[in-house]
């Protein structure tokens, strides 16, 4: 099976292993790597996962391939053998996809009338025009981020120019006012319980905004690795095992640490009078 595993890795990432190099260091043929059906299929799948709509995914796919081919496959040639080849390729592809999405949805696409209203308005525009969320969801999110402190009525009033701004990506977005979110909603939760998310969902808007501020403040005071651990598990829904591996921890130790961190969040929230209803 070990031999099969190695051959499988080679199929995805055709390489010739040099005898005097480290375990994963390889003399690779980037052209062959990129031409392999498995690599192309993987790139396509990742673009479809991260993009909205088939057209965007197709454009992303071409962008990524061009990026990997650029300067005589410079990006692939930078592989140093310090990780599995497949992980390195994933890292390259995701970096290119992120660049593609940023280029597509960068700040220059926000209408001037919206940008002039401030950061909160830009965030609302991004939510309702690009991410096709409802205005109510946009209010929740800008309040959580501390970008808007007023009531929802005040928000609706001040967001009127944002709603009326042109949105080429979603010409019907003006009609999406409250109610359920439209297409493009972020994927559903995994089955893993997320205590912080559960708490926020049960709070009313005012207490949710306060809880969000507290959670942010507590997180900012943690050590850098602990901050990243909290983000990976609670904000990005990675498994504890995956986050533990990245943090150099045994999964049990990571679980223990997360429990301690959750206690810190709970204590601070309780001290501010916020408890789960």
């Amino acid at each position, binding site marked *: 099976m070990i031999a099969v595993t190695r051959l499988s890795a080679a199929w995805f990432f055709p390489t010739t292993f040099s005898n005097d190099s480290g*375990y994963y260091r390889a003399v690779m043929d980037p052209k062959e790597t990129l031409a392999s059906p498995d690599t192309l299929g993987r790139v396509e799948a990742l673009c479809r996962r991260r993009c909205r709509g088939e057209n965007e995914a197709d454009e992303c796919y071409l962008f990524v391939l061009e990026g990997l081919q650029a300067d005589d496959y410079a990006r692939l040639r930078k592989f140093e053998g310090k*990780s599995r080849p497949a992980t390195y390729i994933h890292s390259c592809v995701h970096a290119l996809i992120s660049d593609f999405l940023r280029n597509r949805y960068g700040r220059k696409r926000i209408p001037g009338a919206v940008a002039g209203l401030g950061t909160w308005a830009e965030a609302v525009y991004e939510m309702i025009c690009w991410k096709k969320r409802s205005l109510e969801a946009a209010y929740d999110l800008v309040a959580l981020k501390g970008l808007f402190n007023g009531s929802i009525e005040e928000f609706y009033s001040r967001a009127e120019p944002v709603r009326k701004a042109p949105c080429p990506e979603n010409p019907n977005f003006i009609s999406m006012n409250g109610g359920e979110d439209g297409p493009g909603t972020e994927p559903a939760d995994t089955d893993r319980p997320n205590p912080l998310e559960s708490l926020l969902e049960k709070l009313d808007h005012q207490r949710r905004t306060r809880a969000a501020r507290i959670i942010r403040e507590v997180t900012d005071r943690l050590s850098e690795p602990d901050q990243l651990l909290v*983000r990976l598990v609670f*904000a990005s829904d990675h*498994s504890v095992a*995956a986050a533990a591996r990245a943090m150099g921890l045994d999964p049990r130790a990571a679980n223990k640490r997360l429990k301690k961190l959750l206690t810190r969040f709970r204590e601070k929230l309780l001290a501010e009078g916020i408890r789960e209803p």
Partner: protein
Amino acid sequence: MGSLIGHILKPGGEPAGEPHLTDQDLARLAEGRVSSGEREAFSGHLNRCERCYEIFSETLADASEDAAAKVGVAGRLKAWQAAAAASILIALLIGGGLYYRVYQPAPQMPTASLAVDPELKALLLENEDLNWRSKDRIARLAGLLRQRGVRVKDLDKVVMVAAYQPSKSFIAPREVLRLRIENGVAYLEVIEAPPADSKR
């Protein structure tokens, strides 16, 4: 995804004047192949850089899928290692007990076995000394062993039971580092893991 918490905690913007993490750095971190100093530095950047965090999070998800696919292999290998260790122990007790009673005290610390990953391999290949002289090299070994879950205090000495010659096979079979720590001395040996079950 925890969408409310995600919006609260995910980094926004990019730290001014700070270079982004490279593709290789992100891949190494996703696999846990970084030193504690690097982890601290990388974490600091990821906590502030929306772009790098996004790339890292996606890469970690895919690296986790790949790792999960290999769990079956590792599980069977560990079962084999446990059976082999038990057989060796029994053989030593029956055949070697008298020798050790007369000539050597029994080992004070248990044997550990680790997969030879790139960091360990690089350290083992630094030179061909069977008795390591460099205190720095010995300290780095102790650090790497601790990172991989081996309980080890400071080492005074490291002895290679045999010179380490990396496998020259095209298939590059997996290598295992077996170690015994006794009275502050680490005895190391690298062996090839046997082929896995041919059924899979």
